[in-house]
């Protein structure tokens, strides 16, 4: 019971207290604990915990495959993907370079090299000829396997050149351009991640279509400001004249007047008068696209972003900040014990 109750609360309280008040103490050991050690301890713990997660993932997916549950081929793919990326990072180096230091006949070596660097023989020969004496030429893209690199070395040596194979150092093989891991990152992980993020565009469209309805006054405000932001933020908004927006405003006022008075004459007079006023003002000023500024979408968008939006964001941030602080204090003082199941 002590290990599961009092001890975790004591650890949370002591470490929390030191971390909170350590910020006000200029003692180097406490400072170093607060700034570096505490967070590094967490990172180390989290790094080891990843094994637990990985094992749990493999166990569940393997069970799905064995029991042939619904969607088991995806589980098989997940296991294969895990094993492949694990191997590319920890087991297979996947990055072997071929370096050419000497050659007797550049034309012969170029014949072999051309197909490796995807150039024609003449250009390849020119590259070799331009190489300074005593320098080496490294084929830019490394080979995934040792055998692949050695085959090319053999071919170049047979063509009268002197080539050798150099394996990339462990660790830097992750970031070496063209290595197996780097290839996986660029051509599998990158497009898959970008695809998932890109789905947002579609989901935003369908969510807006469903949710942006004029149900009440607040929803109408949300809808109007949403449309202004959407159009004002992109170049097309800058091409919509402020006068066009003014006409829309006049029509909206007309709709409001009609709902309020329910009198066709008053509505017609409001709309007609408004349109006439806007048109006369337009002719007098020469219809400048961005004037008056308060009806120009990019200006309106900027205003909404910088004023109502920032005001709301600040209020929410202060509230959330207080919430986080209060919750942290509750944990430090041991008032909140739900995280250990109490």
């Amino acid at each position: 019971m002590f290990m599961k109750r009092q001890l975790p609360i004591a650890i949370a309280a002591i470490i929390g207290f030191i971390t909170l008040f350590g910020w006000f103490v200029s003692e180097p050991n406490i400072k170093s604990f607060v700034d570096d050690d505490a967070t590094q301890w967490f990172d180390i713990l989290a790094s080891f915990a990843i094994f637990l997660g990985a094992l749990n993932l493999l166990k569940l997916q393997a069970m799905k495959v064995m029991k042939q549950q619904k969607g088991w081929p995806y589980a098989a793919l997940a296991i294969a993907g895990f094993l492949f990326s694990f191997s590319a990072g920890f087991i297979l180096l996947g990055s072997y370079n071929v370096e050419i230091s000497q050659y007797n006949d550049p034309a012969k070596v170029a014949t072999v090299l051309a197909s490796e660097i995807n150039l024609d023989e003449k250009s390849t020969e020119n590259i070799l000829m331009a190489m300074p004496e005593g320098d080496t030429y490294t084929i830019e893209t490394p080979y995934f396997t040792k055998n692949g690199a050695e085959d090319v070395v053999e071919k170049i040596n047979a063509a009268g050149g002197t080539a050798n194979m150099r394996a990339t150092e462990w660790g830097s093989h992750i970031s070496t351009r063209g290595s197996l891991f780097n290839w996986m990152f660029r051509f599998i992980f990158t497009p898959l991640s970008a695809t998932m993020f890109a789905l947002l565009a579609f989901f935003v469209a369908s969510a807006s279509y469903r949710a942006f309805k004029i149900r009440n006054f607040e929803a109408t405000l949300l809808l109007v400001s949403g449309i202004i932001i959407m159009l004002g933020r992109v170049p097309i908004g800058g091409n919509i004249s402020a006068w066009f927006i003014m006409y829309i405003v006049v029509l909206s006022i007309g709709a409001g007047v009609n709902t309020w008075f329910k009198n066709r004459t008053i509505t017609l007079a409001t709309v007609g008068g408004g349109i006439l006023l806007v048109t006369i003002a337009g002719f007098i000023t020469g219809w400048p696209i961005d004037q008056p500024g308060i009806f120009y979408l990019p200006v309106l968008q900027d205003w909404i972003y910088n004023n109502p939006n920032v005001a709301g964001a600040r209020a929410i941030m202060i509230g959330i900040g207080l919430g986080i602080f209060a919750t942290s204090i509750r944990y430090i003082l041991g008032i909140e014990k739900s995280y250990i199941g109490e």
Partner: protein
Amino acid sequence: MEKFLDFIVRAGSLDRRYIFVVIALVVLLPLFFPLGLPIRPTIASQKVYDVVEELNAGDKALVSFEYGPSTKPEIHPMAVALLRHLFEKDVKVYITCLWPDGQFMAMEALEQVAEDQYNKVYGEDYVLLGFRPGNEAVIKGLVSNLRKVFTVDANGNFLDDIPMMTGINQVADFDYLFSASAGYPGTVEWVQYAADPVGITMSTGTTSIQVNEVMPYVQSGQIKGILGGMPGAAEYESLIGQAGIGTSGMDAQSVAHVVIVAFIIFGNISFFVERRRSKKY
């Protein structure tokens, strides 16, 4: 008329897959047939440009890459545009990454801009310090002692052997800080643990979604300007006069936004027809 209203009501509960197809088309078509819409920089983007413009040749800029492949389409164009501007002005660029995949993004951007476009020399004009785990602890470490966090760069070279690292020991030694951020750790952590305590001039580039969260810091002057998503990148490209991926994506985004607005309006018409009918019966 009744049939038309029936159609509108039915269309109101349109299967979302039709919406997906329309969005896919309107995003794809402008990429093949560009409209060339003019780009107007916002005040926040202009501010970033002005701050960089005030830097002198030889000044030191710390650029942090905090994004991965998923947010690459939004953040990468602005990172590339900013690097172009910095190299154009012969500012020395130091790159750190708080995200592991940020290092890959940084390598790609440097290859494109520093090596291929400006022929800059590694170690003299720019250096990739690389990724270190620890989130905000890394920022705190950079503020107190950079040499403790980084003893070698991303290529394994000792910092003492890199010419442009001479005299660089902490964040205060830099003249400018830019965070290209897609989440945590990112802009907010840089403001809280570096820019505010040290007083270094800082700007940022974030995803469109994050702008709301970061805007209060911009308005209070803690961050000097923000590039928001792809429009921010396009605006910066237009400011430096070098059109890139951001600019080409703007036509697609413009048309997509118009179509979404059209969908919303149509959805509301359908909602009104349906409501009127339900009231009637």
